[in-house]
Every structure is written in structure tokens, then in C-alpha cells.
């Protein structure tokens, strides 16, 4: 058995034992109740919205008009603001991958060994920008990999 097969043995343990659910439980009827909880949160949100509109309608006079105009401005600003977690790629708050190290690791784990050209290309794009210096460092570290780098990166 080579190292790679040995490495996979431990993960196979989880697969074979059917140990996919990692010890998590939920309270009884949780999924039935969560719908009610969410809907009541949404009702609150709806009433906040309509409450805000009604209050702004009750203002009278110039001063009130100004206040109402400001509120409308804030409302429109808020409405057109896009939430940071909506329609955006996953935000990676902590990930720091130094590309050269990443490539060295990949090589160490033989990840690139069986990859198709397109996958290597994807990887290079995914890990952009890989600088010339990093490629040079990589190729110096693994002389045999020079061909791979020149041809595929």
C-alpha cells in the first residue's frame, strides 16, 4: 500500500461506518417549528415597514415635509443598497493562500499528477495572480516540473 492509499484509509473509516451525520441532533419538531419562527420574523419585518410608512404620512407642515423627505431618502438609499451577502461570491474572510506555497503543496500531494490540461488551467486561474517569481521558485524547487509549468501555466 502506498502513502496515498494509506492517507485515504482514515477518511474511508467515516465513509464505511456510515458516519456521515457528524453527531448532530436537533430539538424535537425543530423543522416544523422553524417555519413558524421565520414567518413571525417576516410578519415583524412587514409591520415595521408599514408602520414606518404610516408614521411618515402623519407629518404635516414644512418641517414635517423635510423630515419626510429625509426619511424617504433614507428609505430609497436603504432599498437600493445591496446586502453584502446577496448576489456576491462567497466572502473568504480568513483564507490566506500564498500561491507558491499552494503549488508546492499540490505537488507534494500529487494533486496535479492526474489532472487534465483544462483543470490545471482552471487552477491557475483560480489561484491568480501567480507571479513569475512564484513560478520560478516553483520550478527551481521541482526541476522536473518545469515542463508542466511552461506548458500548462
Amino acid at each position, binding site marked *: 500500500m502506498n502513502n496515498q492509499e494509506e*492517507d485515504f484509509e482514515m477518511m474511508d473509516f467515516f465513509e464505511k461506518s456510515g458516519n456521515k451525520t*457528524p453527531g448532530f441532533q436537533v430539538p424535537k419538531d425543530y423543522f416544523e417549528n422553524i417555519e413558524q419562527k*421565520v414567518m413571525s420574523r417576516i410578519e415583524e419585518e412587514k409591520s415595521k415597514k408599514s408602520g414606518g410608512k404610516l408614521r411618515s404620512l402623519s407629518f404635516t407642515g414644512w418641517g414635517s415635509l423635510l423630515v419626510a423627505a429625509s426619511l424617504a431618502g433614507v428609505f430609497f438609499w436603504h432599498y437600493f443598497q445591496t446586502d*453584502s451577502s446577496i*448576489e456576491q461570491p*462567497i466572502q473568504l474572510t480568513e483564507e490566506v493562500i500564498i500561491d507558491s506555497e499552494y503549488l508546492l503543496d499540490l505537488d507534494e500531494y500529487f494533486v496535479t499528477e492526474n489532472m487534465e490540461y483544462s483543470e490545471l488551467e*482552471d487552477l491557475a486561474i483560480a489561484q491568480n495572480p501567480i507571479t513569475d517569481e512564484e513560478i520560478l521558485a516553483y520550478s527551481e524547487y521541482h526541476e522536473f516540473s518545469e515542463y508542466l509549468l511552461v506548458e500548462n501555466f
Partner: protein
Amino acid sequence: MSENLEKNISASLAEKNFDLAFRYILEGYKERLYWHIRNLVLIHEDADDILQDVFVKIWKNLEKFEGRSQVYSWMYRIASNEALNFLAAKKRKSEIQLEDKAGVANALLADSFFDGNEMEVLLHEAVSELPDKQKLIFTMKYFEEMKYEAISEITDTSVGALKASYHHAVKKIEQFLRQKSL
């Protein structure tokens, strides 16, 4: 993902019946999104809070959903962002110091909705130490058994890069487990 569910949601959205679309979403995705969040944040109470926030965000933004991606990938993206942001904030507050390897184990053991064995605690500890993207990819592939194509759409990452990240994550986890079992 269920084809019928996606169809019903898409049809409701096309008719601009957002309330109906949201009911389909809530009913069809509550469990999947819960487990996705739970696998990332580990503790039930946290997952419960985040799940509610996620659904409120989905409801607030459903009218603005542009259909550039499938609904499920849009929702998973929101859920992933919320969970990862929560973890980052939690780490900043040092409520659970992820650097302290006993932190995750202690938090899990204190959660009355966790009854895993020692090996499962170790697995969660190992996963919690991964960088965000690897954690996300490992969770979706290993625990949620999602296809690379689906993960690719959610994370906006190529399948090749996902395979590499997953492999990388598995190696780190194995290394962690091996060290722990010495």
C-alpha cells in the same frame, strides 16, 4: 436538487408571486440550509439564529433576485456568507478561540444537541481549522454529498480547483487526525 421544487419556485417568481415562491423556498430548503449552516458553525443555537436571518434576507431580497444563477445556489451563497461571517465575528470576539484546539471540542460537548463520539469531535476540530474556502468545500462535498458541479455554481469556482481544494482539505484533516491519534 429537486427539479420540481426549483420549477415551482421559478414559476412563482416569474409570476411575481413572491409570497408563494418564499413558501416553497422555506418548505423545500429549511432542512438543507440548516444542515449546511450547522456543519459550518457546529452549534445548534447558532445555526438556528443564522438560519432565521438567512430566510429573512432571502425574503427581503427575493424581489431583487435577478435569476443570474439558480435559486438554490443563490440561497446557499447567502447561507455560506452568513455562516462564515458569523464565524469570523465569533473568532474576533474570542468567544471560541479556534486557535485553542480544545475550544471547538468544549463547545461541541457543551451543546446539548451534539451526541457525537470522540472521533467525530476530532473531525469537527480538524474541519474548523481549515481555511474558509476549504472548510466550505469539504463540508459541502463530504457531509452534504453535493456534486462538484453544484458546489462550483455556489462558490463560483471551477471544478478542477474544487477537486484540488477538497483534496488539500482531506490531507490536512488526515494529518490532524494522525497527530491526535499518536
